[in-house]
């Protein structure tokens, strides 16, 4: 299992601290998130769960025995095992790490161009913290030198934790503190360095950059057809520089008109097709807000265009426009030239506001959530504290919006247009969630990758700005957890329909871990155009290469193909839960809860084993009866119906 061994040492697991030794073979640390789902050959399931539970905290050590047995070599080392092209930048002894769960400990810090690695050998087993620098949001020097002359640093991380270190004041004042070195490599963009993804040279058997091809995805949906066509009008990103080059639009609107429509839509983001219902031909289309302005400007082309979208669906004589914003916000946008479709101008269209708040509100909500869950959850008032963050309420509104869209399309057979202001945050959440509800394909692993590539990456969700890869400007108002929120919504769906998704929780956590890690190129840049310009597919590895090379780890064994079944989740706080497996995973008191999946895998193995034995016996019996006589015609084998032996 050479391959998986090396894979293991890659990043995802690193995003958190787990002792290398725990991970025995790979000697990498893994994130707590990878709990039971740890990537490993099947036989490793058990050791995996060992590791996980160890986790009482990410950072806690596991069984000394396991370590000793399996990893004598690595556990002695103070440095991490390096990835291809990863280089050590600095090391420091006698650094204190203040673990909020188990207390202060002293050890060695190694900083590479990819990670921060802390190891404390005093503990048995050794304690390890392994953190990709991409996760670091800011580094703060805390206070001045304390009584003992210590210098203290706090690391605020994007993945819901804070870490605190201290070391002795340097004797040599010329020498930089290791944390200054860290700052340099944690924020490469601000320091004129390259993001590690451009250096990381791992080769995987799968090429994730081939997962998505716009034309074949439209083809899968049956596009082009008599009502919709593929246009190359944006081939050079001239109509809209934040849109993909391949767009699907109504047949009877020529490219020239598309350009005129684009003048009336914010950032040129014209309504284009996201999804079409295979039977009713009702569609989900997305765009940005119309440039109505205070004077109520109109655009004949835009009106005609929306009419064409409606006409493309013969089943309904109505079009629903879902504006993701609260109506007040939409109205306020008129002051800035934007606004929303007036029903006078758009005959047959009905406008619905979904009251989802903007990126700033969401950022604040997640910040509050972090306060509530990290490092510890207070024993009392947990639920009201959680409520006061409004996080679940926002999740609910997004899911409720997506549900209404899916319901209109599925039950109402009506086409819908979805937009917010620019159409790259809330709009993406709504279209992709409603597509998940409507189309079982997106609930497979590959389908979900396609969905992300399409609705998020190609349609220009501004990952670079929202996450701030390698950028030290942590107060940037453009940062916002819109994508995290979307993944949270997906997780909520998997909770309500545990058998409807091919992927498991670990898959979602891995995506979020690599959203920050900067190990893969997938989430770099803000648009397809930028990615092309930076030659991301050429110069970096896709996250899907990593994931698709070990699908087993990310597969939900309970998956049942619901085929054409549309999911109608219950969007109620009675069913929405905080995603503890993500937000609270650093807490050592939290044990990952995925034994159902594990148990299912064990049962599958059991079935395979039994089937084998039955087959063997059957063969034996057949041989014997063939050789002896035909008397045993009524042997038990015949009375038994065949059972499936595959998943």
């Amino acid at each position, binding site marked *: 299992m050479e391959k998986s061994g090396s894979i293991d040492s890659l990043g995802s697991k690193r995003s958190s601290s787990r002792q290398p030794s725990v991970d025995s073979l790979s000697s990498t640390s893994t994130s707590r998130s990878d709990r039971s789902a740890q990537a490993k050959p099947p036989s490793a399931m058990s050791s995996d769960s060992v590791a996980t539970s160890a986790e009482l905290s990410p950072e806690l050590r596991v069984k000394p025995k396991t370590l000793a047995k399996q990893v004598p070599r690595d556990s002695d080392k103070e440095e991490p095992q390096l990835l291809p092209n990863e280089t050590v930048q600095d090391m420091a002894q006698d650094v204190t790490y203040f673990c909020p769960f188990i207390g202060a400990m002293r050890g060695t810090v190694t900083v590479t161009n990819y990670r921060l690695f802390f190891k404390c050998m005093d503990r048995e087993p050794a304690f390890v913290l392994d953190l990709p620098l991409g996760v670091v949001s800011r580094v703060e020097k805390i206070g001045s030198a304390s009584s003992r002359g210590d210098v203290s640093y706090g690391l605020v991380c994007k993945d819901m934790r804070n870490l605190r270190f201290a070391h002795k004041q340097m004797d040599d004042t010329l020498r930089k503190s290791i944390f200054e070195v860290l700052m340099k490599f944690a924020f490469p963009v601000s320091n004129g360095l390259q993001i590690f993804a451009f250096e990381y040279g791992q080769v995987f058997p799968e090429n994730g950059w081939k997962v998505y091809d716009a034309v074949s995805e439209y083809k899968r949906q049956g596009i082009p057809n008599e009502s919709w066509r593929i246009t190359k009008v944006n081939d050079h990103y001239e109509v809209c520089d934040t849109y993909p080059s391949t767009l699907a639009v109504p047949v009877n609107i020529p490219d020239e008109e598309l350009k005129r429509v684009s003048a009336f839509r914010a950032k040129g983001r014209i309504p284009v097709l996201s999804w079409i219902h295979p039977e009713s031909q009702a569609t989900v289309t997305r765009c940005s807000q119309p440039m109505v302005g205070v004077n109520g400007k109109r655009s004949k082309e835009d009106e005609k265009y929306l009419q064409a979208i409606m006409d493309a669906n013969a089943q309904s004589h109505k079009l629903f426009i879902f504006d993701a914003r*609260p109506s007040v916000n939409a109205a306020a946008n008129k002051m800035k030239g934007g606004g929303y479709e007036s029903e006078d101008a758009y005959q047959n269209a009905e406008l619905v506001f979904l009251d989802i708040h903007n990126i700033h509100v969401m950022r604040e909500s997640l910040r509050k959530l972090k306060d509530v869950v990290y490092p510890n959850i207070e024993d009392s008032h947990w639920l009201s504290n959680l409520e006061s963050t409004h996080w679940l309420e926002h999740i609910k509104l997004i899911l409720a919006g997506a549900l209404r869209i899916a319901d209109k399309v599925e039950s109402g057979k009506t086409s819908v247009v979805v937009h917010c202001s620019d159409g790259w945050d809330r709009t993406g959440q709504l279209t992709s969630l409603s597509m998940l509800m409507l189309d079982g394909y997106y609930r497979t692993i590959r389908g979900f990758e396609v969905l992300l590539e399409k609705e998020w990456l190609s349609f220009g969700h501004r990952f670079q700005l929202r996450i701030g890869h390698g950028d030290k400007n942590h107060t940037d108002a453009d940062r916002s957890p819109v994508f995290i929120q979307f993944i949270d919504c997906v997780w909520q769906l998997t909770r309500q329909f545990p058998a409807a998704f091919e992927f498991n929780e670990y898959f979602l956590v891995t995506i979020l871990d690599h959203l920050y890690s900067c190990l893969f190129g997938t989430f770099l840049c803000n648009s397809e155009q930028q990615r092309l310009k930076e030659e991301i597919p050429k110069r970096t590895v896709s996250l899907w290469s990593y994931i698709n090379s070990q699908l087993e780890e990310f597969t939900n064994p309970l998956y*049942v193909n619901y*085929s054409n079944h549309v999911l109608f989740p219950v*969007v109620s706080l009675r069913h929405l839960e905080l995603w503890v497996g993500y937000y609270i995973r650093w807490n050592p008191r939290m044990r990952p809860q995925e034994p159902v999946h594990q148990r299912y895998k064990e049962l599958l193995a059991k079935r395979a084993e039994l089937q084998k034995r039955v087959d063997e016996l059957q063969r034996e019996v057949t041989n014997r009866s063939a050789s002896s006589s035909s008397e045993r015609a009524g042997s038990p084998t015949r009375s038994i119906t065949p059972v*499936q032996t595959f998943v």
Partner: protein
Amino acid sequence: MFSVKPLKPTFKCYLPPVQTDVKKTIEQPIKKLEPSLLQGEIVVNEVNFVRKCISAESSQDDLWGKLICTNFKVSFIPQDAPPKQKSKLSHLLLGEHDIPLTCLEQVVTVNDTKGKKKVLGSNQKLKFNPTELILYCKDLRIIRFCFDEAGPESAKKVCLAIAHYSHPADIQLLFGFEYQGRRYHESKGERVNGSTPRGGLQTPIFDRPSDWDREIKRTGASEWRVCAINENYAISQSLPEYIVVPVSLADQDLKQYSIFYTDQRIPLWCWNHVNGSALVRMANINDPLQQKKIDQRVFTAITKSHPQRGEVVRSDLDKCLPNIQDIQSAFVKIRQICVIDPFEESEERWLTSVENSRWLEFVRAFLKHSAEMVYYLEGKNSSVVLQEGEDRDLSCVVSSLVQLMLDPHYRSLIGFQSLVQKEWVMAGHRFLDRCNHLKKNDKEESPLFMLFLDCVWQMMNQYPAAFEFTETYLTVLSDSMWIPLFSTFLFNSPKQRAQYLMDFAKNKAIPQGEDQVVYFPPVWNWSQQLSIKDQTLFNNPMYVGKGAACVQNGEVKTFRRTKKTYSSTMRGTSASQRNGLKGGEEPLPRRGSLLSELKPDFSPVKDESPIERFFRDWFSRPADQQGVLIPLLMPSHVALWKLFFLRWVPEACIPKGGPITAYHKLSQLVDEIEILQSKLRQYKGPSSGSTPLPSPSGPLSDQRRMYFKASSPSDSSTPPDYLSSSFPFTPVGNLCRRGIHGTPISKFLNGARIWLSTETLANDTV
């Protein structure tokens, strides 16, 4: 006062009533609607042309039919029964529209035109003609009948009859006494033909020394003995006849001590850890002068019974756990927000409302306290004494939870049932008062058993492979409390039980010496209520029974596992423990709770207390489903038991979703495995034992253990359409709140409405 029309009891009782109804209505639609009656059941009053409300949103699905009050139940017989839903358990004793009188919480009559409303009790008058009857049930259903087309006088009479008969003046008026008497005589013939005296019941009842003996042997409690001083309840009114005590205490000592304990409840052994520590429960000692002396003697005896002479830790439950009134009021509140409050309005502040009910807080408090007891027993080799005023309420919850955490035996179906027998029924939990079956004293009502079931569910939710039974089992068990036909939940103590049953036997001419279990069976014989097929819903396909340990992790762990011992002094226990444990000689240097402090951005760091370290250490290892199980105790990990609390709520029902869809898939797989296993057995002959997979206890042979059968390769294994998060229950017709207005689309909005402008709402008319 009421006209009692004795009808000939029919013997249809063991047929699912609904089916017979269906047939009948097809044959003769207008024909009289006959209730299906059990033996000894008589119709008290009835009214025709009643409308049963099915949906709050419109009346188009409402059912028309006859409303009947018998001496056992409220029954509604629809004129045109809709096809029976596949998704429902068919109960052998109750039809789809039946409610046992004991299950009624409140009977409310309403007159809409006059704007009047009255909650009816026993022997009351009603000054208006009701237009509506709303039945609030103890199992959280709310059922509504309308009398717009019914004769006003008959409607009134039925309402009064229901109210009257649901407030029986005496326990012997509970229908079980009538029913079991008849049943005994009717079925006498069958029993003679061979069935064993206890009806093949596998669950030990703990009413005889042998049951206790077996338990002593099973747990290796060699220094404990069965003691018969309470035979004929000579010492204590509330203890069982046979109890287990330290061998070093003589009967004479015990008799002497008993006078100082509340209700003469001398310390009662519950369970022994393999390390020799014992779990003991006892009542308070009333006389403070004697307390020290007796405590010392008893504790010395307990220590002597410990092979390592482990110390004894006493936990005073009254001081560290909520009392029964608090628990009752929490339950009332959580019920209010789950089923009574309008769905969307309660959405708005849902989390805060749940918190304010304090139900989950209490669930967590009991789990936490029990886990702390586990620490002493498992981590410190100490024996634990649970002390409570009367030792009949909180102790029942804590002692059973501790045993559930420590001993995998109790996580099997039979083990669990024996635990309930041992720690609840025989230990003298006042089921009659706590359930308030006679509706006499609301102050005594408290859902402790329900709280216990919720705690069990929390464990099950966290360790889904550790229990042989399912949440459906727990729910059906909780519902059984409200069917007065089983002896399990009817009495306050073994003595009361024995007394009433003796009277009963006399009255019904049942020969002396007959086993009570035979003439008044406990709930554990599930075939009384459910078909064999439906009982398979109790089986957890994931259960890792002892035989299956090999599948796990390659390495088989046994219950006895080596453990690290920590320093024997109890440094830094958490606040609740400090309050809880006055026993033990250890001085408790205090330290701030880890959690209570304000946390700055980078919180300061503390050292762990031994108990925290014990838990962390435990959590750092993979959980052994057949070993000790400690629940996660963070508030974020204690969840609302949705199947129980929300099963009747239509708005909360996830179509084709919920945990049942995973259960469905798992069951199919296990069924395939069992088919393969039986194949193997056929090849190999009966003896060569392949390890039976999940359940060592269930009969594997002909009966399939799984409710959902393996699909043939041609089928898709898509979950059937009738599955929903409420399965196997259905909200249809079981939750009809009053005064809810809303359109179907509101279901999809679910509270988002408050965020929507009125304009938007107006737009959203489709």
